[in-house]
């Protein structure tokens, strides 16, 4: 637990001081929401617009998050440490999760304004849906981001890899969000949330086994 918290604390401290990821993700996400709204997309397209914005913003943030680790080869410092590789993955994923959720707060706020999300919407239910969907995207995105950390053009590469792999999570998140935006209770999205939970669990289990090799050169 100490190592996990140390990695989370370090990544959040670095982002808190560098202020690179959250502003970049917010700008990208807000831009996408704004363009979709300006293009005249209505409430029926609201959930897909929200999640496309989140996925693109998150993939940008996930790719950049490993950029910090490559500065001064901090990646090798982690690789040399006598720690369980699964804990390194979980620490990185948890920090990414918090950073992306912070960006989503703004993106969802702007989305709510442009797509007139008010009144009957249960905000708690939307929050649960956002957390569940983001968890799935971060779980697989952190693994993919680590795998391509050393690649050139990783910022462009990650969305190409993440989108196809995250399709089950994104579709379930979109469907759950549609239900919530329609003013229905979370119980109606139980199937989608269960799918998201299963997807996240699978995506967390994979790196627990594979991250040893990801950390190595």
């Amino acid at each position, binding site marked *: 637990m100490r190592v996990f*918290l140390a990695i989370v604390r370090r990544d959040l401290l670095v982002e808190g001081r560098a202020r690179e990821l959250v502003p970049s993700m917010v700008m990208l996400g807000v831009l996408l929401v704004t363009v979709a709204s300006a293009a005249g997309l209505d409430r029926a397209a609201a959930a897909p617009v929200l999640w496309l914005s989140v996925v693109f913003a998150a993939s940008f943030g996930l790719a950049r998050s490993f950029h910090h680790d490559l*500065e001064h*080869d901090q990646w090798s410092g982690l690789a040399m440490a006598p*720690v369980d590789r699964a804990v390194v993955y979980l620490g990185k994923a948890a920090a990414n999760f918090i950073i992306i959720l912070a960006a989503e707060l703004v993106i969802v706020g702007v989305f709510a304004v442009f797509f007139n999300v008010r009144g009957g919407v249960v905000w708690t239910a939307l929050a649960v849906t956002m957390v569940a969907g983001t968890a799935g995207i971060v779980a697989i995105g952190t693994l993919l981001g680590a795998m391509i950390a050393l690649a050139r053009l990783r910022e462009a590469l990650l969305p190409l890899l993440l989108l196809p792999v995250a399709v089950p999570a994104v579709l379930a998140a979109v469907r759950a969000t549609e239900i919530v935006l329609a003013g229905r209770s979370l119980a109606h999205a139980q199937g989608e949330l269960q799918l998201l939970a299963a997807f996240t669990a699978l995506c967390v289990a994979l790196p627990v086994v594979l991250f040893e090799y990801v950390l190595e050169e």
Partner: protein
Amino acid sequence: MDTDHAAAVALAKVWKVYDAPVLRDVSLEVDAGDVLAVLGPNGAGKSTLLRLIAGIARPTRGHLRVLGAEPAARRRSIGLAGHDTFLAGHLTTLENLQFFADLYSLPRARARAALEDIGLLHLARHPVRALSRGTAQRVSLARSLLHDPAVVLLDEPFTGLDARAASDLTQHIGRLRGVGRCVVMTTHRVDEAVAVADTVAVLVGGRLVARERASHVDAGWLLDIYGSGAAKPETRSPKPVGSP
């Protein structure tokens, strides 16, 4: 590999191939309490050699043991101060060392003590990115020694240090030898190697072409190795590598 021999670091016929071979058939042993300096021109494979011993990369072929086991099983016993500092630029020196104290399950107070040891406690709250290269290198050295490793790997440790810091480092390496630590350092300067090492090995084109006691080494010897050894590295080895 001779498993009876208690070498702290032992490589037997190690190859490392990326796009092309970087290390070729390297065999080498270093005992506890010995300081080995690996000399070689740029691109000779010196840093790759240290990264293999550190367990950051695996050999493509051959056997590598640190304290009798794979490097991955000896992570707690290996410290590496590389070209890069492994430090987060946005964190302070103290925060960086505390992070590594957490990774190695050490008391966090060890971080402050390490800064005090190298005379940089006054920079505890300075972000690493604001430090000069030489100062950052000293912090990196403190980081690599934080967990008191039995095997210390130093990649061109004198680069960027001023005369006083270089002198301190020389003394520090001497102290490590005195307490039985195995030190493997790389350099491309023969004077640095002779000043601190017991043994000097030369890598040319990824191949270990010579190994000699440091007291028998001078610039002329190295130039002779470089001059003809690169062309025929196998014929330049004055004795079988790994031999005492």
